[in-house]
Every structure is written in C-alpha cells, then in structure tokens.
C-alpha cells in the first residue's frame, strides 16, 4: 500500500515538475517572441525613417519632421519628401506587410514552406491581369487592384481544383500545378508586352520586376484601405492559426470549422497579395522568405503572423534602400529580393533531400 502511495506521490511530483517545465518553456518562448516582434517593429520604424531621410540628397530627421508636421522647409525639400519619399515609404511598408502576412498564411495552411503565393503562380497571374488592365484596357490605376484581386481569387480556386485528383488533394501537386499556371501567366504577360506600345513597355517591365518607384500619393488611399481591412480580418482570425498547425483532425476536434476557415484565410492571403502586386508589382521572394525567416528567429510552432508581416516590411524597405543607394546603378527592389530568395530555396531543397522526400 505504502509503496503504491509513494509511487503515486512521486508521479504527481514529477508530473508537477514537468508541468512547471512546460510552463517555464512556454513563458520563455513567449518572451522571445515578444522581444523579436519588438525588435522587428523597431527595425521597420528605423527603415521607414531612413527611406525618408536618405536618397540623392540627405535630409536630417528634424528637417523631415518639420516638413511632415508643420509644413516647413524649402519647395525642393517638400517635393522630395512629400511627393517622392513618403509614398515610397508607405507603399513599401504596406506591400512588405501584405506579402509577409500572405506568405505566412499560405505556408501555414498548406503546411509547406514552398507553398507561398509567389511560387505557386498567384503573383504571376495577378501581374498578368494588372498588365492587361494597364496596357490593353487602359483602365485607371484605382480599378486595377480590384481586377487583380478577382483574378487572384479565381486562379487560386483553379489551382486548387486542378490539384484534386480522384478526390484526393496533394500539396506537392498543387505546387507543381502552380508552376505550370505560372508558365501560362508569364507567356500571356509576354504576349501582352509584345502587343503594347513601345513607350509603355519600359515602365511595365520595371513594374514587373517589382518596384517602389511608381508609388504616388494617389495610390496610397486605395492600397491602405484594402490592406488595412484585410489586416483587421486576419488579426481577428489569428487565434485559429496555431490550432490549424496541429493538423486537420485536432483542429476539427477543437471546434475549428476548417471548411470555412481555410477558404477565409487563403482568400485573405490572395487579396493581400493581389492588392500589393497591383500597386508595386510582384516583389520577388518576399512572401516566400518572410515567414520562414521570422519563424526561425521568433521560434517555430507558435503564431508568427505578426513577426512575418514585420519581416516582410523589413525585407522590402531594406532591399529598396540597398537597391537605390548602395549599388552603382539604381535597381528595383524586386531584383534585390529575388537574389535573396534563390539561396534560401536551395537551402530548403537540401533539407527536403535530407528528409528523403
């Protein structure tokens, strides 16, 4: 009897120890997450300020603040900061956040680091739609995001339907089909470019490689409202994500309606991607990189939505600053981020290989 009692006592003791350890670990991870989020947010703020101050001519922070708040400064200064740099900063910030969040949503729901919207053809398809609107239909800039969003949603649905064979859905297949869709979309974009007037092509090519140089104040309101609404929606749904990470069976058991939640989250991701693409062009690899880098720093297995979004903004603003100021010629931001994406993709392949997939 005593023996048994002892054992039970021991059991509860080790049990409480384990629980304690779990709690401590969880607290530690939580603290790390908060710290990382804080520093990422700080980095975003610093990069925003750098975008406003650094350029062809350097303006000090007090000067920038005077222009922004009190309406002081010379005409040249006001033009540079308010007309050139401020919209560039806002568009870069919003695009980075959008791509980062969208990439994280896709990667989480499809449970594959490769399944980001820029790899599975959604960015390409929305680019094609945008090019079609701009070059052929000559639609005004404010309508383009709406059509891009619509195309993005339809193409995602198509890719999904195509990757279901014999009633079974496969993520690997979805990625391959996405790459096929990308080839069609790119062919169509090239076709449109070859039809277009000569003077339109230069600007379109720059836009296609993902650039913040076309940012103007007129584009900001539409962009801000669209992505703002979606950020709120995603923020409201964010508590479902860690549950989804546990797997379909667990999530259903814990009361998540997957049939509603998957489409809602994926659609949010598509809308964010499409809106940002319509404004800044498909900035290569940001959606694909932001989530994994953020998770790497903040710790895996928790809700890294916020760090991913912030990391997206860091990537876009940082790459833009590098492309505009540090290199012998000026490069659009997408060229720089594209160069970053490739080594990471190769790293993932190495890991896939190690797992023997």
């Amino acid at each position, binding site marked *: 009897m005593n023996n048994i009692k002892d054992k039970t006592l021991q059991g509860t003791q080790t049990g409480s120890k384990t629980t304690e350890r779990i709690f401590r670990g969880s607290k530690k991870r939580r603290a790390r997450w908060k710290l990382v989020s804080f520093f990422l947010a700080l980095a975003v703020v610093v990069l925003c300020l750098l975008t406003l101050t650094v350029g062809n001519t350097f303006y000090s922070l007090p000067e920038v603040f005077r222009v922004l708040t009190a309406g002081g400064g010379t005409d040249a200064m006001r033009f540079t900061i308010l007309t050139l740099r401020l919209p560039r900063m806002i568009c870069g910030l919003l695009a980075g956040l959008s791509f980062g969040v969208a990439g994280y949503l896709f990667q989480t729901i499809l449970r594959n680091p490769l399944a980001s919207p820029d790899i599975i053809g959604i960015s390409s398809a929305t680019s094609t739609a945008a090019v079609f609107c701009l070059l052929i239909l000559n639609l005004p800039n404010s309508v383009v995001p709406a059509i891009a969003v619509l195309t993005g949603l339809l193409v995602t649905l198509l890719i999904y339907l195509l990757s279901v064979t014999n009633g079974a859905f496969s993520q690997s297949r979805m990625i391959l089909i996405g790459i096929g869709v990308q080839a069609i979309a790119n062919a*169509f974009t090239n076709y449109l470019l070859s039809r277009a007037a000569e003077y339109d092509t230069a600007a379109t090519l720059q836009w296609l490689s993902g650039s913040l140089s076309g940012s103007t104040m007129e584009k900001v309101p539409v962009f801000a409202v669209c992505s703002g609404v979606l950020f709120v929606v995603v923020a409201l749904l964010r508590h479902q994500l860690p549950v989804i990470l546990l797997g379909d069976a667990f999530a259903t058991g814990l009361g998540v309606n997957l049939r509603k939640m998957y489409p809602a989250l994926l659609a949010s991701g598509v809308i964010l991607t499409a809106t940002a693409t319509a404004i800044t062009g498909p900035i290569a690899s940001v959606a694909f990189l932001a989530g994994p880098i953020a998770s790497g720093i903040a710790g895996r297995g928790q809700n890294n939505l916020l760090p991913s979004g912030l990391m997206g903004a860091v990537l876009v603003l940082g790459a833009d600053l590098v492309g505009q100021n540090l290199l012998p010629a000026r*490069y659009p931001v997408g060229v*720089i981020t*594209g160069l970053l*994406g*490739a080594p990471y*993709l190769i790293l993932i392949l190495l890991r896939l*290989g*190690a797992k023997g*997939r």
Partner: protein
Amino acid sequence: MHTGKRTALYTAVILVFLALTCFASILLGSRRVPFHFLIDLITGKDRTSLEAAVLLRRVPRTVFGLLAGAALGVSGALMQAITKNPVADPSILGVNTGASLFVVCGISFLHITTASQYIWLALAGAGLTAVLVYGIASLGNGGATPLKLVLAGSAASVALGSLVSTVMLPNSNVMNSFRFWQVGSIGGATWDSIMLMLPFLAVGLVLAFVMAPFLNTLLLGDEMAAGLGVNPGVVRGLSALSGIVLCGATTALAGPIGFVGLMVPHVLRMCLGSDLRRLIPLSALTGAVLLLFSDIIGRLIGYPGETEAGIVMAMIGAPVFIAIVRKVRIRSL
C-alpha cells in the same frame, strides 16, 4: 495493335502532318498570298513577282522551325531518359535562363553583337545550368524527384533571372536587343542562322542516335547495364552533352522556347512505348511539326503582326504539363 505497326502508322501520319505544316507555313502569314502563286512558284512559272518573293522569304523560317523543333524534341527525349523524370525539359530545368544570363553578359560586358559569337556563350550557360540544377535536385537521399527537379529549376530561374536584370537594367541598349531575343521566336531566321546552327544540330543528332541503344540498356537499371558491358556514366554524360548542345544551340538563335521537349517525348512514350531507338527519331519529327505549328498559330492569332512561337508554345505546353502532373502518382512526386 503491334508496336511496330503502330510506329509505322504513326510515322506515316506525322509525315503527312509535316508536309501540311510546311505548306501552311509558307502560305500563311501577315501578307496574304493566294494559293495559285504557290503552285506557280513550285512549277517554276513565276519566280519574280512580289508574291513569289514573299513566299520565298518564308522558306528559311520554315526550315529553321523544322530544325529547331527537331532539336528541342530530341533534347527533351534525351533529358527525360537520362533523368528518368517525366517533367525534365530545358525550360523547366531553368536551362533557358542560364543561357540568357550568359548571352546578356556577353552583350553588355564583351560587346558581342553577332549570333555566331553568342551561340557559344548560350551553350556554356545552358550546360552549366543544367548540371547545376540537376546536381541540386539530386542532393540528399530521394534522388531527383519531379518535385525537387522542378523546384530546383525554378530556384535557378529566379536567381539567374535576377542576375539577368542586374546586368541588363542599367543599360538600355542591352535591354532592347535582349528583349527581342528573350521571347523566343523563329521569325528572324535567315539562311545564315540556319548554316550557323546546322553543325551543332548535326553533332547533337548523330550523338543522340548513336546513344539510343545504350540508353535503352540503361533503362534496365545501372547495374544491369554495367553487367551488359555499358558504362552508365559515359552513356549519361554523352547523352547529356548531346541534349545540351541541341537545346543550347537552338536557344542561342531562337531565344528560349519551352515545352517542346516536355510534351513530345511524353506523348510519344504513352503511345509507342519507351524504346529510344524509335522515340528519338520520332521526337525529332513530332517536335518539328509542333514548333512549326505553333509558329503558324502565332502568325494567325497575332494578325496583322505575329505572336512569337515561344509564347504560343507555353500556352499550349503548360496545360499539358499540368495534365502530366495530375497523372503522376503522388508517391513519386
């Protein structure tokens, strides 16, 4: 039906199509020429009128299309046989982007302007990229599965594409000459470019035909092949060389044209089995018909201008790629 009979029937059908597409390619285009001018031209009654001149101008383009299509078809058949992978194709493997990068560097750093100079650069670029992509994809113990191969290819495309932009964007002259090369077209073909391509194609095709029986042995597995006195490494190396020479030379002159090498061997293998002695010559014929056909389609949908064959090919080829992916078993992805 017996495979031999089926092959004979297929060969007859494809030859008829070949003749038809050749006719159509000479007859159709942005300037409409009535049919009787073609008859007059062939019978020798009229070789001097404007219409005859237009028709004669389309002859090198047709010949070039046939050669390029044949080269791409064979190149695809070889790559699929070597990698034992249904989605291996120059465009999927990122080989085209590799060739692009070398050509762009040649144009902007070495100030190369003639096709005879950048054919070598394109060959080097194509070869290096093919080896790189295949090497990355076969790392780790699962070998080069279709998924890994495609992703390694798109990784290479993204990286090399960014490099291409980095070299190209600061220099608008380079951008202009590159833009026309990049879409993939056989419209600019002349007898000169055909003569330039011919030696490469001859070497590549002869090598491919010589290698076909050995590749067949390789299909039995490396150990079995070695037991039968075939050195798998040498066979693979030479076949890969042939495939790269064929697609590199074509890419240098016509620009990147994808999906010919993906579709043709795949469809043929489904109908006629995987004997490469049959597959390689028929891939050449079918590739020639397919490329010429998409060039003609491009002339029709682009009227009064034309749409480049590379674009039409992607629009036809990518859906076929998707269909192939849907058919492959999930396990082997």
